[in-house]
Every structure is written in structure tokens, then in C-alpha cells.
């Protein structure tokens, strides 16, 4: 159901992180096309990005972020071998996380 993909790219002036999260991001105002019932709200509230276990970016969000959120962030250049981790928690207290080791060839 859920899942998270993380990629990094090293340049001379920054390290770019791209994050794709599988999540419905329902805002609670949509109706089921078949039954006509309201689809309950189900959205990520917080996303945290850590560099070597230290928080570098935090995002608070709600149902105005598109389904299957995709974010790009840039960090000041990090070293190859540094660990980047991302984790989120949603309004149903479900969570997911992913770890990623930065290398020259992380474009996979």
C-alpha cells in the first residue's frame, strides 16, 4: 500500500534529494464514485528528512498536497557514504521510513 523511493544526486554545489511517497492524500472531501459516500480523510501530516540521524528538513502538510507526494530538496554538499533517511506519519498514525546512502552513482 505504501512505499517510499529516495534518490540522491551529487553536484559540486549541492546534494539533491528526490522523494516519491505512495499515499492517497485524501482530504476528506472526495466521494466514492460508486457509492457516493465521503472518503475519510487520510493524509500525511509530517515528513522528516535526516542527514546522519540529524533532522535537516521537516514538512507539515495535509490534504492539499497531491496524491503520491513527490518532493525535491537540496542539501549543502554531503559526503559519499553519508546516510539520508526519510520518514512520515499520517493522520491515522501509520508511518513509513527509508534509508539511503549517498554515493557518486546513486542515479539508479
Amino acid at each position, binding site marked *: 500500500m505504501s512505499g517510499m523511493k529516495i534518490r540522491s544526486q551529487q553536484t559540486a554545489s549541492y546534494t539533491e534529494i528526490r522523494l516519491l511517497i505512495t499515499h492517497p492524500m485524501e*482530504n476528506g*472531501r472526495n466521494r466514492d464514485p460508486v457509492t457516493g459516500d465521503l472518503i475519510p480523510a487520510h493524509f500525511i501530516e509530517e515528513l522528516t528528512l535526516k542527514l546522519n540521524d540529524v533532522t535537516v528538513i521537516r514538512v507539515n502538510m495535509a490534504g492539499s498536497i497531491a496524491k503520491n507526494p513527490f518532493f525535491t530538496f537540496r542539501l549543502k554538499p554531503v559526503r559519499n557514504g553519508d546516510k539520508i533517511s526519510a520518514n512520515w506519519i499520517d493522520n491515522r498514525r501509520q508511518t513509513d521510513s527509508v534509508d539511503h546512502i549517498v554515493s557518486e552513482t546513486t542515479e539508479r
Partner: protein
Amino acid sequence: MRSFQRRIFLRKSTRLAVAASAIFAARAGHAAWNAEHFAGAPADDILARLFGRQPILETGQISLSVPEIAEDGAVVPITIGSELENIERVYILVEKNPTPLAAEFEISSAAMVFITARIKMAESCNVWVIARQDNQLLMVKKWVNVTHGGCGTG
């Protein structure tokens, strides 16, 4: 006498520092997601909840890239960038969405001010990006024409 007072002062200031770091830790914790900020309310109300009466200055030093015409309001790409230093927070607001605040970003000094995201837009309106730099609020806005919005978005 003097050194005794100094010791008391040191002890008190240590206690203050501990209290301050506890407050910071609490602020940095999960309590930071604020339902009041993400409530369904007019954009002006949300602005007041976020920033009180603090003036918001329009700036040319933050770049905001959004499509002029968004065919699908359910997925509108947005790119924000700035060379400014000391930007601690960045907010994305969609003026006419039922819940105007789309996201708030806390950016540490290890990160740069460069963000892309995909937001929902219920109808054609302005997208506002507001950044907190030290004690001032900076804003850039752009109008987006939404071809297909309404239900299922915002």
C-alpha cells in the same frame, strides 16, 4: 562575595539554558503539526493564525515557478528557490483552497532553499509562498489558471 554571586548566576543561567532547550525540543517534536494551521478556513484567517499581524513584504529574492495554466488541479507542480540566507521556514498557501495551507517546511542550515512539490488547487487563484527569514516575513505570489479543479482537489 563576587565569585559567590557569579556561581549563583551560573547556576541560574544553566537552569535557563536547560529549560530553553527543553522548549526547543518540544517545539521540534511531533506537536509541531498544528490543526489550526491546516483547518478549513478563508486564507486570510489562516494567515492571521500563522503570522498574527506581522507585516508580510513582497520580495523578488524568492523564485516561485508554477504553471500559468494547470489542466489538472489535482497535481500542480511548484518549485521554490532562493539564495537568501537564514530562511528557517517556508509556507505554501493556495488562496482559494478549502484548506489554504498546503505545507510548511522547516529548513535547517544544512539545507538550501530549494523545494519542489506537487499541490492540489480547487480553482484558479493565487499561490503564495511565504518565507520566514530571521524576524521578517517575505512573500512571492503567482496566479494559476486551473482548467479542471473542483471536487477531488484542494
